[in-house]
């Protein structure tokens, strides 16, 4: 059931993202069937176009670290959805959900798109293009 809910969410996200997406389509780069949910520490923030990105290190129970590269919307969309360039800082603890890239770089952090981003204090931060300027 949980899996079904996940798939439904993915389909809804993909459908919602598509019409509003700028730069590239969701489906061309990300796999709606590979949902990810994790906690980690921010190691880098790129306030850049065509997408802002943040990088996090996720540590598992054995102390092994996995590095992630999460795509967000572009800075213009983030600014219009409550962000400042300094809203996310190196060292911040965050909870992220999103979708894995179909194909990512062969080495380095795993590439994914952020669907939701929650700060350590529970603040939900706008993350990607699903609800950008389109109404």
């Amino acid at each position, binding site marked *: 059931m949980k899996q079904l809910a996940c798939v439904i969410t993915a389909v809804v996200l993909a459908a919602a993202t*598509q*019409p*509003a*997406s*700028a*730069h*590239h*389509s969701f*489906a*061309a*780069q990300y796999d709606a069937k590979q949902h990810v949910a994790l906690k980690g520490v921010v190691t880098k923030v*790129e306030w*850049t*176009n*065509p*997408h802002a*990105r943040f990088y996090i290190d996720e540590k598992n129970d054995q102390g092994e670290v996995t590095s992630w*590269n999460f*795509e967000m919307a*572009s*800075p*213009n*969309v983030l*600014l*219009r*959805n*409550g*962000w400042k360039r300094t*809203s996310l800082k190196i060292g911040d603890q965050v909870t992220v959900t999103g979708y894995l*890239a*179909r*194909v*990512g*770089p062969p080495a380095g952090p795993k*590439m994914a798109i952020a669907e939701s981003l929650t*700060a350590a*204090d529970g*603040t*939900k*931060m*706008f993350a990607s*293009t699903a*609800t*950008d*300027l*389109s*109404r």
Partner: protein
Amino acid sequence: MMLVTVMPLGAQTRLGGSIRANPPSGPVPRLPDGKPDMTGVWLGGLPVGDISTALPKGETMPIRPEWKKKMDAFQATDDPQAHCLPLPPPRFTPYPWRMVVTPAHTFFLYEMYDWRQVFMDGRKHPTGDDLDPTWKGHSVGRWEGDTLIIDTVGYNDKTWFDNKGWPHSDQLHLVERYTRTDLGTMKVEMTIDDPVAYTRPFTVTGQARLMPKEELVEYICDENNQDAPYLQGAKP
């Protein structure tokens, strides 16, 4: 203290308006010479995803079979947008654009990527070897009543009409008609005539809405384009 750290989820324009507010209503603002004042930051125009949805009801895109075949073969990575290349009309983006009309020129400033210049001084298009194929073509404009008409030729064949990838040849002739129908609304009508790729001219219609208290944000697409090498599969 907690409140201070909470990031507002509200969606605001750069100068404090709401990006999701309905456009303002009221009469068309006019310049001292009586012409409509087109100035403003606008959002929308034609559908970003598929301009065929802006055809008159019941019509389909009169594309020639060989061009449809070419379109069907497009991959996601063939989209000029994925490589930060220009997206001139009839293509629109989900981001705002500003229109500035002066006696000599009309300028379009598109937040996503680019600008356009339209000559308003009565000149004609260059012809023959003087007309270089370009991404945005050569545009001349004139008023017809309250409608600003822009005529463009001299395109290359590298741009798409939308995310779906409706293509065109370098023989594209585009006629854009912009009519501010009230304070907050701009009617956008475009007639596409490309005898190489389409069997007849056709017209698509949409509208843009004014975004009060908005200004354009810099968007330098090339600075960190990590996506292009990883786009997979056919276009939607």
